[in-house]
């Protein structure tokens, strides 16, 4: 996207977007100094407690009771328990549905579509739409939960009133569909912003050329737009997947129910760690979640490398 500006012949062969060498004369020492403040905070308040948490994962540590003062080292016991727990399988599967449906498909498609359509709308329309979409993103989770309960309520819900389906218990009959749609509503803003920016970076001349050549919208997207925004798309996918995977807000709407039918991973951890005080077990689940996240990240990175090839 950016022409390689380095004079080094070695760097010239590098793919674009990789300012590999130090053209601005920062120097490693100064670069380290630039990174240091963030790194210190991250090491102290993130890496350290995270490693500690991972250590708790091999103990039977609890918040209260005998195991709170004298936790025992239990090796991989928590992990074998997690992997054997039917609730974990259920929850992992639901989470993958949740991520796939709401983040990968929903937010990405809707976010891109809004960004694409808004390019040619009048400023007033564009601003209104963007403001509303962003509002859904920045409102606090606890507020948002009430909004959706009021929308989907069995008796007086706005949705039932509009569809003329009084008494339909959406949250009980279709809990997963509800939280998927909810999360599309909640998180589309990020994808929308990212794609708006990415589309702004597509040279207008490319679109002009496509138009002159009589290409359909679909062809334009595929041939002129997609190659240009692929890097952005992967960033967006990676982040929204991670966020959605760890998102706790669905719990505020369905409480994981009915019958654990919407108990995504974050709700599962919450119940074991905070509800039952089983911190060792909860820590083990966290690591398993991290590994699943890692797999997702790897999948995206492979896709990214294929783009480079």
């Amino acid at each position: 996207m950016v022409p390689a500006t380095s004079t080094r012949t070695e760097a010239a062969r590098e793919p674009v977007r990789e300012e590999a060498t130090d053209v601005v004369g920062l120097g490693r020492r100064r670069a380290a100094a630039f990174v240091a403040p963030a790194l210190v905070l991250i090491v102290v308040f993130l890496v350290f407690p995270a490693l500690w948490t991972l250590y708790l994962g091999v103990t039977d540590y609890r918040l209260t009771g005998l195991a709170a003062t004298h936790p025992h080292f239990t090796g991989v016991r928590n992990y074998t328990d997690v992997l054997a727990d039917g609730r974990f399988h259920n929850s992992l599967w639901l989470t993958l549905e949740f991520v796939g449906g709401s983040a990968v498909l929903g937010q990405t498609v809707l976010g891109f579509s809004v960004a694409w359509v808004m390019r040619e709308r009048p400023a007033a329309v564009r601003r209104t739409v963007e403001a509303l979409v962003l509002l859904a993103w920045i409102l606090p989770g606890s507020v948002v939960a009430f909004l959706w309960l009021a929308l989907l309520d069995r008796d007086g819900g706005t949705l039932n009133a509009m569809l003329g389906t009084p008494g339909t218990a959406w949250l009980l009959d279709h809990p997963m569909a509800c939280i998927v749609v909810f999360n599309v509503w909640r998180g589309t803003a990020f994808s929308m912003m990212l794609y708006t920016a990415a589309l702004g970076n597509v040279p207008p001349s490319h679109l002009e050329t496509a138009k002159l050549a009589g290409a359909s919208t679909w062809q334009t997207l595929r041939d002129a737009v997609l190659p240009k925004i692929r890097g952005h798309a992967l960033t967006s996918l990676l982040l929204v997947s991670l966020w959605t995977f760890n998102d706790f807000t669905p719990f505020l709407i369905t409480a994981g129910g009915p019958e654990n039918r919407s108990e995504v991973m974050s709700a599962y951890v919450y119940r074991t760690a905070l509800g039952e005080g089983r911190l060792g077990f909860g820590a083990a689940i966290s690591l398993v979640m991290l590994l699943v996240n890692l797999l997702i990240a790897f999948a995206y990175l492979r896709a990214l490398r294929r783009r480079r090839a």
Partner: protein
Amino acid sequence: MRTALRRIAATTFVSLVLAFFALPMLWLASAPFDANPKIQVSLPGFTLDNFRVLLDDPYALRSLENSVILAAGTAAIVVVFAALAAYALSRVRLPGRDVLLYLLLLLSSIITGTAAMVPIFLLATQLHLVDSHLGVVLVLSGGLLPTAIFLLKDFTDATPASYEEAARVFGASPLQTLRHVVVPVIRPGLAMVGIWTVAQVWGDFLMPFLLLRDPDKAPASVIMYTFYTEGGQPDLALISTFSLLYSVPVVLMYLLVSRRYGFRFHGGIKR
């Protein structure tokens, strides 16, 4: 013909999007003004009483101030530190930076989860950070920084270094270059990371709740949960009203930032 169809399709799409995003917010527009609200949207028996009750509440307004302190503090640290780090990481290849960045990104999901609360709490106790706003700010910053760096590095990677080279030729120091050349270019990115940070802090309940003892220091996310009865039933009149008050500052911030900094990802430089 084709353009007409296209326009109709686009208008329909825009209306649907508007409806989809606006519909759930109706409750926030109606319930606070209702004397006896339910979990449903209804035309309110108009009253401002709910607001009056909250104005008299000893914690409600102060909690909004506290939220502003926490959010602004965290956003300042996150934006500045992340910008510095992202810039350096983008322009100089430190060993293993990409692997490290990914690992940190993944680890941050552990920290934001509930399982890490004991380590974080005991750490804060040792550092004498319990019951202080600074403690909450630092803990939250640590968790948010990797994502912020990741986002901003993506931005800086996407901007050409040629201007910085030019600045260097004219003898600007790296900090000057960052301040006067890079920051203006990635400003939309900084604005976006800032807003993201504020939204995260604004909604976070668990950390401020655990780390702060004095209710006078509690942010709005914590006070929001006080409007329940002893049995856990919500006082909908106060909750809806407080929700509205609680939401207004972030909306104002968004409007302000988007007006001043053009809250977008635009690369900024025409090429």
